[in-house]
């Protein structure tokens, strides 16, 4: 639990280094702007500013970098909501309901929901981190391949909520995605499907592929529109509506809490990063919601669930980094490098000897989340104006930026080419009613599924009973099945109730028909 004297010292560090506070706002803005560029992920945004931070003193550098981290965590949701392009995998689930809302003219509210969910859960993540940083770190190291495999399966369950008209087409799309995700060298050193191209040894770059698949369905179809939203009245940018969205977030504490817990736990697991937490949080929220049928059509709960998991995941990832010196994801790997460049090695000894500094860093992150509220509102106010620009200007610019963004991912034309190839595939899949999202989920999770499944197999020597030795994995599977079972049960009850209602309605109709003896249309 929290160490009071260290906490007081931490407050001392915070207030004695007020100069470093000045880096919060620039850091947030840099994070917001960079991550709003399609293709520039949180990791890349931080990699870009890392060399800059070398010239600052230690605390300022960390404040600056973590501010970029905090800002970038939210920035990706802006293009996701306005244009259906997730800036990075972590804002993929935000597109589901966020873009649907903005197509209904509710982009102001959607961004408000996303921002508030992001800041609230960001704070929640760090507060929890302040309390349990050490025990959490020990648990995290114990999470093995079987547990990770369970998590990956859980992520795949999202497919169930991507309901397509044809189940078979959804399954084929998902299988294709998983296979595409396993291209390249696997964890046991076998190389498949690379066509002899060295760039494919590490697999298909997921960000260009994802942008290509989704952009084909959206951006290209914008060519026939004059504006991103067709209804003229809905294009307005309204501070009142943004604030309404912000405020509306508070109506869903359950969604926020569930998203935060999922986000923190998954964010803390080394090597998973934030790209899966948002999928699980979205799927879980949708499955347990009474109005699950409206998810994907602009339900604010979908936006809140996805964003809350992304934001709280930062706290979890930071915990692993500070306590163990292990990066939870790409972004924390950059932070570790920044620490080392200032001659500080995070890890168990750092947390023992420098507890006040650890607390100061966490506290500063909480401050950043609060500042993000103000900066974020300004940012989305400016960014939403893109809705008022005619597509003939927006579209060329966005496509060029996306192309260069994917170039930034790979550093050569392979990125833009991946974008284009997947754009074609995405177009064809859409044309024949295949859920493109299923392919994206497969690509994002395929590698993790294979890696963890394989390691579980290697570790158990092929004995499936090994899972009984892993209580953690059993717990995850149990929670998953219970949650599935309860939903099925709830659905059945709901269906029964609906059937009863329909029956009652029909009876009433029949009665009225009998009374009036007029032919009904049925």
């Amino acid at each position: 639990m929290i160490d009071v004297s260290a906490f007081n010292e931490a407050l001392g560090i915070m207030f004695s280094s007020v100069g470093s506070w000045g880096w919060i706002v620039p850091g947030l803005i840099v994070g917001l702007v960079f991550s709003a560029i399609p293709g520039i992920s949180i990791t890349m945004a931080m990699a870009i500013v890392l060399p800059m931070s070398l010239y600052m003193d230690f605390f300022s550098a960390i404040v600056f970098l973590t501010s970029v981290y905090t800002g970038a965590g939210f920035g990706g949701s802006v293009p996701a909501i306005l244009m259906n392009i997730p800036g990075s995998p972590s804002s993929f689930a935000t597109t589901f309901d966020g873009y649907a809302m903005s197509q209904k003219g509710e982009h102001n509210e959607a961004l408000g929901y996303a921002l508030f969910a992001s800041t609230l859960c960001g704070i929640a993540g760090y507060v929890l981190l302040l309390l349990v940083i050490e025990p959490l770190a020990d648990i995290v190291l114990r999470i093995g391949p079987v547990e990770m495999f369970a998590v990956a399966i859980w992520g795949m369950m999202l497919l169930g909520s991507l309901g397509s008209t044809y189940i078979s087409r959804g399954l084929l799309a998902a299988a294709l995605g998983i296979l595409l995700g396993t291209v390249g060298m696997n964890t046991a050193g076998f190389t498949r499907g690379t066509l002899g191209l060295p760039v494919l040894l590490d697999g298909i770059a997921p960000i260009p592929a994802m942008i290509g698949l989704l952009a084909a369905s959206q951006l290209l179809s914008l060519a026939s529109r004059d504006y991103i939203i067709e209804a003229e009245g809905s294009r307005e940018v309204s501070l009142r509506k943004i604030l309404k969205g912000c405020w509306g977030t508070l109506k869903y504490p359950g969604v926020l809490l569930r998203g935060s817990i999922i986000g923190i736990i998954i964010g803390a697991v080394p090597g998973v990063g934030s790209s899966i937490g948002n999928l699980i949080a979205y799927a879980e929220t949708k499955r347990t919601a009474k109005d699950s049928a409206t998810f994907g059509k602009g339900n604010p709960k979908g936006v809140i669930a996805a964003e809350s998991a992304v934001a709280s995941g930062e706290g979890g990832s930071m915990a692993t980094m500070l306590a163990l010196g292990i990066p939870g994801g790409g972004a924390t790997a950059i932070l570790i490098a920044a620490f080392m460049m200032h001659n500080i090695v995070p890890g168990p000894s750092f947390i023992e000897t420098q507890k006040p500094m650890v607390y100061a860093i966490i506290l500063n992150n909480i401050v950043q989340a609060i500042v993000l509220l103000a900066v974020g509102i300004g940012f989305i106010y400016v960014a939403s104006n893109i809705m008022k620009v005619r597509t003939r200007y927006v579209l060329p610019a966005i496509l060029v930026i996306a192309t260069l963004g994917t170039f930034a991912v790979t550093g050569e034309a392979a990125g833009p080419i991946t974008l284009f190839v997947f754009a074609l595939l995405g177009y064809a899949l859409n044309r024949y009613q295949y859920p493109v999202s299923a392919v994206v989920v497969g690509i994002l999770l395929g590698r993790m599924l294979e890696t963890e499944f394989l390691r579980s197999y290697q570790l158990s020597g092929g004995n499936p009973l090994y899972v009984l030795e892993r209580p953690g994995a059993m717990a995850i599977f149990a929670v998953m099945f219970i949650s599935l079972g309860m939903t099925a049960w709830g659905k059945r009850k709901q269906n029964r109730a609906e059937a009863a209602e329909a029956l009652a309605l029909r009876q009433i109709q029949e009665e009225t028909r009998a009374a009036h003896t007029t032919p009904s249309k049925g």
Partner: protein
Amino acid sequence: MTHFTRRDVFKISAGGVAVASGMVAMPSILRAATYPSRPINVIVPFATGGYNDRLSRAFIPYLEQELGQPLVIVNKPGAGTQLGNSYALNQPADGYSILCTSAAPYIPLTVLLQNAPYKIEDFSMINLPSRDYTLAATSSGGPVKTFAEVIDKLKKDPTSLSIGVQPASADYANMVLAFQAAGIDASKLRIVTYDGGGPARNATAGAQVDVGFVGGEGFLPLKSKVRPLAIFAAEKVDWYPDAPLIGATLKTDFVEGSQRGWAVSTKLKNEQPEIFKIIVAAVEKASKNPKAIEALKLQELATTWYGPDASNKAYLDNAAKMAKYVDLLK
């Protein structure tokens, strides 16, 4: 390797044209006299934040002092350094691209196992200050106390302990060599493969695998979470003195781990010897700069000056050993 894409051909021919036109315009001595006249790229075939990236960023200010031009880091990660290495070789051999890489065992491995489109001799070392060794370790709370115990247990029952290792690496070769020397049937072992040193170390520290074979240097921040069982080095390693040497338990041949540092293309060394000399002298001076030594030491980065000859020898020795044991890696 015959897989040339059109892009490669274009790049190579474009590079060739650039070199050719440069040569026509300026004799080599003159080019050396003006070198360096513009910023120099440092190609790091790893992502931002890895050892080589940190090494290059920490060392660059001191190297800039010697060369008098800014140095720009270009991270080109992917395919076990193959993408970055190919990229470096495709640049004109004019001294404006320097590699900061884990030369051994990555360059030999990409050549031996991935059919990389270059040869081991295409790279010339300037200095490889960082020398890493495979460390066999277990979680600090684990039941196993010594490497002899590991061997005993595995001899009785090869499935009794699980082993974490990165496939196709120096660590893997060392693991197989050690178990062969001990007479353990490697085909029955429970070997868990990790696609990088980091995940393998986490798995070791978290007791997900009983014994991990990974480069030792990366364990330093996690020192309190692991117990070193054996380090695959001939002499005591100064950055991990409490790690018992493998020779104390077992008589076995082994491969040295990563050798990281500075390299250029052999083409530059042969065609522009003057420029090569300038770079070598600059790296030597910077490596011996007391300020650089102090700064890098604080970041747990190496600055030892071995020089081009010794570094090249170490690199080629490693490559030869890798070639000898390449069948173990497949």
